[in-house]
């Protein structure tokens, strides 16, 4: 039983890391551009599908993990510069609806190119198999995933706190008008933010592929979870998104042990508890 619990907690932690990555991406875009990115889910899915195809062509899993998120960034750039930017002067509801339309389009494109049936991307031999931790035998890839995602989150944190661009992004979340006043090219800031958000979504998607497999609906399934992460975190809080993502992953892991059929509902229970007891979110100020 203890083995089961520990392994499920580790599973939940891995899942939580993925949620944290997509959640932070969504939070960045939400905070700086002031729109909920409804295309975030399909960017996540694209990350996985790109990785699958690249791995198949080149035979290198690592190269796929490197290139696929960058391709997703490219897609993100196109969405921002060709659509979202044209709508800045309209009400922000329209940007949201544009992204929703893009989500429908990309969703269907995925089915056209990769077919409606799901498949799996196997981790390379160096990462497959299990590892003996002494008290527990645990799949190697999942362990590497946790460490790598953790590493990425640290990198992201350093980027946001130690670099100029990071400071501008944080300033943008705090006070968007300020960035305009400071004479910074707002279009560029928005473009980079959207790109960074897309990168995180794509990366999470690619990383998830070996454990969760690829299905065309994966983008539509992850999107509501991202929104729950944002609601639980408090709108616009990056540390909040990281912690909320991990918490939700852990609670799903725990639910798998005791109420396996409720794994999908438990995240909404978390959300319900948050809005009842702390309506502004765990780290929200407003």
């Amino acid at each position: 039983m203890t083995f089961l619990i520990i392994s499920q907690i580790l599973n939940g932690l891995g899942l939580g890391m993925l949620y944290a990555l997509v959640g932070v991406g969504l939070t960045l875009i939400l905070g700086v551009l002031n729109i909920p990115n409804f295309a975030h889910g399909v960017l996540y899915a694209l990350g996985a599908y790109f990785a699958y195809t690249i791995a198949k062509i080149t035979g290198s899993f690592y190269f796929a993990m490197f290139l696929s998120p960058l391709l997703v960034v490219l897609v993100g750039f196109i969405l921002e510069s060709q659509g979202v930017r044209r709508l800045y002067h309209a009400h922000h509801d329209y940007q949201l609806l544009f992204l929703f339309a893009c989500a429908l389009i990309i969703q269907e494109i995925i089915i056209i190119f990769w077919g409606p049936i799901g498949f799996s991307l196997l981790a390379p031999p160096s990462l497959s198999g299990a590892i003996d931790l002494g008290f527990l035998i645990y799949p190697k890839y999942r362990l590497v995933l946790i460490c790598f995602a953790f590493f990425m989150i640290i990198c992201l944190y350093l980027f946001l706190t130690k670099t100029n661009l990071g400071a501008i992004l944080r300033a943008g979340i705090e006070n968007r008008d300020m960035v305009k006043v400071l004479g910074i090219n707002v279009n560029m800031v928005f473009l980079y933010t959207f790109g960074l958000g897309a990168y995180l979504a794509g990366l999470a998607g690619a990383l998830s592929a070996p454990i969760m497999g690829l299905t065309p609906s994966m983008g539509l399934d992850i999107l509501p979870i991202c929104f729950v992460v944002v609601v639980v975190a408090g709108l616009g809080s990056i540390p909040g998104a990281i912690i909320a993502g991990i918490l939700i992953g852990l609670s799903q892991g725990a639910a798998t042990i005791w109420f396996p059929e409720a794994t999908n509902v438990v995240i909404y229970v978390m959300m319900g508890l948050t809005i009842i007891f702390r309506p502004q979110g765990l780290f929200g100020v407003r």
Partner: protein
Amino acid sequence: MIQNKYSFIALIIFLFVGPFLFPNATITEMLIFGIVAISTNIMLGYTGMLSFGQALFFGTSAYISGLMLLGGFPLFLAIPVATLGSFIISLFVGYFCVKREGLYFICLTFAFNQMFYFIAYVWTEVTGGEDGLVGVERPTYIDSQLTFYIFTAIMFLLAVLALYKIVTSPLGLIFKLIRENASRAEAIGYNVRYYKLISFSIASTFTGLAGSLYVLIHSMVPIDQIHWLKSGDIIFMTLFGGVGSFLGPLIGVVGYIWLSDTFSIIWARWPLIMGVIFAIVVLYFRGGMSELLENLFKKYKAISRKTEHEQDIKNTKLN
């Protein structure tokens, strides 16, 4: 006012001509989603609140009415109970959502929608889970296509009249105040949160009414009727028609359902085309079809006036 008169005449004509233009299932679906879109517009167009969770009410109410019919209750009990059910849920969900504005409101409604979706998904014994709720039978007195259409049309008209009554009442004005300037509305003595909740509830209750009728079309409730994608469709229909006028959203519904019916026969990946249309509408025709028609009408008038004018000049020259 005069414009409204014409729109209502057009609506009555549509109700008579519609059954000859579209198959029975299509036209009844149009009327049912017509209720949804017109009531959603009370919230979206009049009050200025974008909810991404309207499928919650549509789906839940469809389940309630479907379950009651399966349980042997008469239709005239199932519809009010389902509608009342969505009213109560809308008060509950709305209470938490209207506390928050803008983006947070969108995120919350969206997340609530998915919460109910998963309840329906997991609770297989009751809802049928992924397969949907099947085997609901229409009562015999509306079993024929004609009687079913008449029944739907009457429900539709009643709902539209009730909603029209609301938008032309002081309540409708208060909704517009909130859309225009919520803090000023508060300063002249309106409890904005309270009226937002009313607006949310009205939209959701009528959406629920529509949901309770929907179960009768195909004698089943597919689970995707409560999925958040359906909420997106509902907003699209409303916007596609145009949020600027009372009956505008209905044009969007007719257009949307006709297009998706047509494309879904031609190509399995038809949502792609709908997505492209949606993107084009958002980028270039934000006023929706009703504004487009209005502009075309104005242009036509201007041109005809111009030609008349030229004709006059010609005539005077000839003379």
